């Protein structure tokens, strides 16, 4: 009799490789790596069925440090490789790791099409608002006026919001997290993994060398309570040290504003409740910026629909079979003639 030994439960450490990690000391990527390894252990991921696919950049080195299958491809194109992988084998659990330059500059087009197709995978965008690997040039998410080697007098172009882009492209799952918030990050990643379709997660990541503290106004320990709002489906949209600040629909306007419970007659009943299936609300939340508004993190939007692979399979099943897959019959179909 064969005794089947149940696979030992893997820990976060089991998902680490023996490769020397080459990020700068103190880089936010370490924290994200830790969060992802923990998530994989939490969800019971099967290493041989898990594939990390990345483009190029500091963030894109990620697959080398995961004891799963890994594919470090070319700049900006990871979504396309991942789509091919999922078309070939929809059973694989695919995570794409990308940077703000990789995903939104050179690869912006592929990201849009990945999201609208809704390929079933997790897309993690490590946003540090800078090109780390190429030594600190400004990126498509850098704020106007960013000084960098290529913009010594400050950048001129307007930045792009990754989450608004994702929503506009038709993403069915859009979330945000912060590299250093290790209690929050694995929860978001777990939700992303559960969701069928493309799960888009923007992770604010500190580049300690070229853009240190760029998110500090809402990620510094003493700023979190007052400048962040961690959204949860079905819960009131409140923040602040004592949970008294909240979001509310501005009367007579198509806008939200920040109010304080107990001030100007505002009660708990006036506070908006998060509905993650509401795309309009998600768009408003994604658009909030400090200092007037808190920055929203957590699952801003989740409204599942059939994945691309499911659609492709359904079409294949509907496809007429003329020759039962027999190629010899195919070659002999239509007009033929015999020469004796």
């Amino acid at each position: 009799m064969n005794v089947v030994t149940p696979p030992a439960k893997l820990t976060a450490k089991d998902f680490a490789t023996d490769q020397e990690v080459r990020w700068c000391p103190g880089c936010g990527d370490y924290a994200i790596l830790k969060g992802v390894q923990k998530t994989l252990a939490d969800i019971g991921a099967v290493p041989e069925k898990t594939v990390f696919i990345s483009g190029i950049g500091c963030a894109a080195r990620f697959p080398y440090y995961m004891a799963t299958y890994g594919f470090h491809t070319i700049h900006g194109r990871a979504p396309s490789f991942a789509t091919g992988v999922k078309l070939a084998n929809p059973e694989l659990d695919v995570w794409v790791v990308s940077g703000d330059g990789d995903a939104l500059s050179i690869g912006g087009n592929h990201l849009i099409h990945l999201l609208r197709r809704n390929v079933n995978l997790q897309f993690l965008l490590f946003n540090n608002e800078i090109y780390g690997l190429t030594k600190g040039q400004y990126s498509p998410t850098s704020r106007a006026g960013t000084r960098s080697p290529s913009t010594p007098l400050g950048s001129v172009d307007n930045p792009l919001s990754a989450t608004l882009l994702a929503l506009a492209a038709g993403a069915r799952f859009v979330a945000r997290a912060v590299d250093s918030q290790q209690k929050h990050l694995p929860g978001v990643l777990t939700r992303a993994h559960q969701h069928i379709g493309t799960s888009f997660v923007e992770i604010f990541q500190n580049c300690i060398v070229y853009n240190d503290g760029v998110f500090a106004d809402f990620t510094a320990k003493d700023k979190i309570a007052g400048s962040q709002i961690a959204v949860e489906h079905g819960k009131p949209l409140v923040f602040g040290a004592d949970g008294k600040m909240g979001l509310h629909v501005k009367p007579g306007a198509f806008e939200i504003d920040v109010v304080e419970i107990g001030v100007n007659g505002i009660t708990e009943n006036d506070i908006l409740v998060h509905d993650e299936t509401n795309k309009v609300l998600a768009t408003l939340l994604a658009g909030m910026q400090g200092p007037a508004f808190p920055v929203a993190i957590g699952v801003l939007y989740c409204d599942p629909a059939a994945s691309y692979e499911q659609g492709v399979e359904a079409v294949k099943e509907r496809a007429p079979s003329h020759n039962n897959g027999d190629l010899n019959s195919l070659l002999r179909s239509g007009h033929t003639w015999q020469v004796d």
Partner: protein
Amino acid sequence: MVTNTALKTEVNDETLRQQLESAVVRFAGDSGDGMQVTGGQFTLSAALAGNNLATFPDFPAEIRAPVGTTFGVSSFQINFGSRVIKTSGDEFDLLVAMNPAALFVELKGLKAGGVIILDTGSFSERNLRKAGYQNNPLEDGSLSGYRVIGLDISQLTLDAVKDFGLTNKEALRCKNFWTLGYVFWMFANKRKETVEWLRKKFAKRPEIAEANIAALNAGHALGETSETADGFQGFTIPQTEQAEPGLYRTVMGSEAIAWGLATGARLAGLKLTFCSYPITPASSVLHTLSNMAEYNVTTFQAEDEIAAACAAIGASYAGTLGVTSSSGPGIALKGEAIGLAIGIEIPLIILNTQRAGPSTGLPTKTEQSDLYQAVYGRNADSPLVVLAARSPANCFDVAIEAVRLATKYMTPVMILSDGYIGNAAEPWLIPDIDSIKPFPVSFRTDPENFHPFVRDEATLARAWAIPGTPELMHRIGGIEKSYDSGHISYDPENHQKMTDVRAAKINGIAKDIPPQTVEVGPERGPVAVVGWGSTYGPINRAVTNLLDMGKTVSHIHLNNIWPLPTNLGALLSQFDKILVPEMNKGQLLTVLRSEFLAPAVGINKVTGQPFKIRELEQAILAEMEA
């Protein structure tokens, strides 16, 4: 000039037909006149009549160019006959001109004394002006050197279909089938298949099908009963004699490639994932494969060519056969991804249906000017395999060979086809797939001594371990890999070693491909004419003709562009003169000169039209005498 007024009651005597060994017919009309369909139906009936044939669809880039203009002329040429047909023909024996613009554009290609069938109903003042005629060529004597059959096809068609309740516009659309009926009579071809085709095609609108059939029959009947001034009674072409016995069909290059890829994947035991982005003239392969789900084919229309190449590589990485296809401009976009496929040593097939360039160039016209791009067109030392198809049917074999080499050697393989091959059709002795030796892929599953770049000692191919395989988890990418572990390596000596092994692997493939042979002519001698790709037909016919004239000349044709066959250098050294005809400015020429220091001379043409046999004969003769 003949007109449709001279009608007899009895049918013409079939025995009075003039016998031809072969004939070239060119159907020309407005883009909206349905000339490609007409040509396709004529091809089918010629093939079923047992003729050998080759076709050449020649159409404008504009989908609906303004009616009646010269740049809106769409043509279809067929060369058919009882002898072996190698090209779509030089000058035509018969020109069908549906309007003045078609006559204006195509007349120069008609043989002296050739036959013109034209629709006099379309020779209005306005149409003549649009075509650029100062005078009416039907009246000014400029057509006196030809045999002109002028028929008011527009009116004759309207008369033939008047009982079917069509609008005037719909009725006039039947003109091409009326004309086809007349041309069928002229070559004694059968109408049955076309009638069946029309009924199937217009199953939802039977009145359209029946009106076209009535037009077809009316055109045919007119031929049978009309009396021509010079007693012309049509032609007859005897059946082909040389053909090998077996079951035949006609096949276009784009179909043959699609079927060959699916067959190759089947022989390798893999599913096929075909990723592409539309571009003329490559799209028809995507269209064909999109209908082939039942043969384990998945197609993906990507957002651009880069995404298509990357998705194909991803599909191979996950264990299917990834194929990507485009034309020159799109292949340029794929370059970086192809470099990655070379670096990670993964099977990938890249199909380039070449067109005239640079840039957009002449999208619907043919050229073979992407050989440099295929062999040399990437950053760094990045060798891959390049194969070239010589004819529509040959695409099938080349596609299978591409799959064999890609999977056996874990390498990208580029197939060079071109617009002419893709769209042209020829008869094909249908192969039995069960008789082709399979070459099943075996994925690595054994963890013992595994790393992603362990190599097979003989082929130098690395192990193919796909995601989903227990205990073989590994990471690969574009950064240089250690020869000994597959891990990232920045070691200088290692990069030298890996670059060398990538080159050695591709060079080694030369031992696994057929040695170069001589198509016709002696194995050594004064002149070798060396070609590749779609120039096969015209070169072969030209050299054969010169041999028949008593000249000593040989034809060598390359299927393997990279690596080159091992014996090619020695073979070329047996000839005093090496001539290389190409539809480019001399690309294979450069390769032969640089690889073998061969004293080769180019014969080059880039008009977007295939070589004519006569052109080549003259060029070869001139070089022989030079």
